[in-house]
């Protein structure tokens, strides 16, 4: 199926190649030496997403600047046109600055990255010895005291996202009436450090986490099997264990999307098209993360390898964008 798609895009590229002369306007635009600025945030997955997008734009003839930018503050810059795109925004923790800039029409959601993400509650596998019924959520609830810490006794401790990302784990568990008290983590680094310490000490841990993430490639963890996070669960209170609450189930699927400065389409129409078409596979991203973070390889080389092995599909995408 995948090959078939590749074939068809190559054919399309051939056809388009025949009429390339038509798109001289975009060739002119390509000549612009003013660089497109892509935001590089704080985590490795996003670095890869952005480096690959940058490499694609460069292959199409653009000059690209990768600019480090905080996940929240970047939208102030994008609203002003100082930054032009940020390509991995998670709905689950989209910053308030995005909502504001998007409402003002200064920043645009240009579509999903199709990076298949999952959020949920997980534990390091050694917890199965302490609580043999895992991953079932009923079993988890029954041995909540095995997950307790002094601040949460007699309840178990659920390490949730940093407070400023929202508290999805707490919301799920409260709706389900679980015997857990949630504690917000301060940062992503703090979450990972807890995971690592828990594995080193064989100490209890239950935390809200997400995938793709390099730590899941490096450490053995398991998701708690919660009731499926369906639409009914989130709209109908009578659904699920708690008859009076919505959201008494697993996380609803997370969407990851790409954003650009509102003026992008006018200034660089082809680049805008390319970014709209750009998608990344979660498996690919996680493998590359393991290469960068696990094996310490240089991110530029890892990305170059990815671009080489997907060269024909990318070239097809570029010629398609130029023809639009």
């Amino acid at each position: 199926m995948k090959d078939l798609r590749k074939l068809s895009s190559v054919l399309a590229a051939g056809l388009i190649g025949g009429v390339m002369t038509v798109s001289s306007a975009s060739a002119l635009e390509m000549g612009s030496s003013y660089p497109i600025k892509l935001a590089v945030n704080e985590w490795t997955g996003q670095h890869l997403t952005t480096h690959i997008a940058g490499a694609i734009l460069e292959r199409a003839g653009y000059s690209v600047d990768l600019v480090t930018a905080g996940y929240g503050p970047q939208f102030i810059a994008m609203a002003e046109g100082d930054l032009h795109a940020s390509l991995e925004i998670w709905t689950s923790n989209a910053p308030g600055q995005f909502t504001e800039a998007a409402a003002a029409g200064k920043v645009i959601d240009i579509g999903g990255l199709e990076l298949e993400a999952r959020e949920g509650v997980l534990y390091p596998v050694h917890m199965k010895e302490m609580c043999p019924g895992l991953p079932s959520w009923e079993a988890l609830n029954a041995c909540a005291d095995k997950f307790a810490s002094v601040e949460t006794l007699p309840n178990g401790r659920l390490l949730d996202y940093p407070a400023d990302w929202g508290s999805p784990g707490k919301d799920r568990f409260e709706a389900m009436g679980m015997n857990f008290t949630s504690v917000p983590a301060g940062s992503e680094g703090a979450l990972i450090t807890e995971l690592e310490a828990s594995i080193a000490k064989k100490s209890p841990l239950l935390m809200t986490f997400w995938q793709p993430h390099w730590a899941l490639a490096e450490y053995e963890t398991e998701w708690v099997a919660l009731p499926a996070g369906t639409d009914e669960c989130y709209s109908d209170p009578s659904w699920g264990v708690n008859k009076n609450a919505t959201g008494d189930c697993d996380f609803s699927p997370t969407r990851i999307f790409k954003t650009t400065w509102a003026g992008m389409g006018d200034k660089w129409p082809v680049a805008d098209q390319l970014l709209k078409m750009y998608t990344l596979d979660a498996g690919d991203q996680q493998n590359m993360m393991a290469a960068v973070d696990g094996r310490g390889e240089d991110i530029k080389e890892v990305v170059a390898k990815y671009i080489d092995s997907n060269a024909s599909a990318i070239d097809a995408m570029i010629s398609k964008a130029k023809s639009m």
Partner: protein
Amino acid sequence: MALAQKSKTMIIMAVMLGLASVIIWPQQFAWVNNAPLSGATVLSDTINLGIKSFVASFKPALRFIAGGIDAGVRGLQVTLHTIPWLMIVALVGLLGWRFKSMTLAIFCALSVLYMAISGHWFRSMNTLAMVGLSVPLALILGFGLGVWGAKSKSVHKVLMPTLDLMQTIPTFAYLAPLVVLFGFGPVPGVLASMIYAAPPITRNVILGLKQVPHDLYEVANISGASSWQRFIEIELPHAKHQMLVGVNQTVLASLSMVIIAAVIGGFDDIGREVLVATNKGSARFGQALGAGIVIVLLAVVIDRLTRAASESRATSVHLPLYFDAGVLIAAGVIGFIFTDQMDGLTAATATTIRSIEASINQGLTNFIGDYGLLLDQIKNNALVYILLPMRIGLAKAVLPFTWGVSFPPMMQNIYLLAVVGLSLFMAIKGRFTLGFLILGFGLVMFQGFTFLPWWMVVGSISYIAWRCVDLKFAAITIAMLVLITWAGHWQDALYSIYLCTASVLVCLALGCPLGVWAAKSDRVSRVLAPINDTLQSIPLYIFLIPAVALFQINEFSALVAIVLYAIVPLIRYTEHGLRHVPETLLDAATAQGCSRWQKLIHIELPVARPTILLGLNQTVLFALAMLIIAVLVGARGLAEQVNIGLRDANTGLGLTAGFSMAFIAIIADRILRGWAASLGETNDISMDG
């Protein structure tokens, strides 16, 4: 007289009983316990609106300024990247040699060499480029303000609190508006660091100008000098030394703030490297530490060089300057010709250093595995027996599954009776302060910091402000506390005060003994000095990783991170104070036959007490500053609000919480300094240069 004394005792006892009853039966006294002003968002909403309209009207002008600064940073960046690193190593070495000694030269050259061979050169130079712009800006601004403040009394009055605010409002509170106003890139970081770094030079300029002896003015007047001539010919040269002390402090402050500002990004600097490595958890602690060490070296080299330059001691170097020029050119030529070989060399050494960092990570992981249970015990005991009672009170913290016993109402009554009884007894004996202290401490432990009634906090703090400073400052204190309440940050403020108090108490318990030990033993002092230097100049983020790795995310980790950073001044000032106790006093004590302990307890510590208090003052300010970073490992309160404000571009929220933190810092600072001054002559380290 006796009657007056008696009625005073009666009044105080009545006040004590009143206090105790309101705290013991909060339900019955709900009307006094409710906060005077319910938190409103009016303030933060107004700020948000104000910023929006300001941006709308001044954006072009501000962007023009930003463009200039941006061009400056980028120009400097290109220059620093073009110069071969070997040449910069040589330059720094020569400066150290000319300014002071061969030892300093070697130290500086090796430090800069490490930046190159550890693979952090590119980002270090980016940081240096930002510092290179922010320092001159801070110096110009700070010098101008200083001269103006020294010349005009009314300006001085406004300037002093402004400087306090510039140094105590957490940078995170105004980073977001700076990005809005000046655009993205290195400029907001440069400006934030300019705001933070200007006050030291301003303070030192004012101090220097005020120290100009009066007769010099008269000489100037007699000889008919214009006021401009007088300023250039007499005042400036006279104040020069003090100003140079300020320059040194400004440069260091600027560097530390450039690192903090990396949180907004926009420039690929070494602070960002540390931040990203910190985000990857304990498995990357080595990398974060490695990059952090580069920052420490950068800070120490800058510190030593600017200090040596300001002391401008004549060195024994008699070689002409063209020797230096020759060395520099040689280093530059070698650097240019052998660029590829040099790059190969640094790549190889960087790989080696990466593997050392990896083994540090492994070491940390092994340590956690081996000592995990012990660490958990330490953490749990601290949380259960100290932190929880302080925060929520013994009544709520003593539970069968934490303390192993319950705290039934009967026992609670006995506890309260004991506290009230003991304090009344002290009052009868005439020891009012002790009585109030016992009452306060006993009730705080019973009720918990975060459940303290507002009037008690406002009342006792303003009372202390009155006793330690003056009535006017007590009024200001009340105004500031009311503002915090009005902005809706009262509960957060109580939490921040609680965590800060707990951290400072730990600092006292550990820092003072360490300081005493360092004062008594030169060897200990030599070991502690570089550790202190490192703790003070290392980027704050680094403290977080070991704190979380060892103790997970909770208040205890936050406390550990705060203590690591804030303990340093207390150690330093204690040592400094003890080492400056007059010899004659000690000799007299020895002649009286005092033992070493008696001397320490009865002579040295009391004499050094004002200086130690100054150290305590610094510790409190450092702890408040560190709260902002400690949010990342589990601290809450005001600092968390500032972080949320930065993240959500809610400038109003960030600024009101930031101002609240600054108010607390200013109140603590004034009270402690007032107390120190009332005890006698202080011996301030910073005044020594």
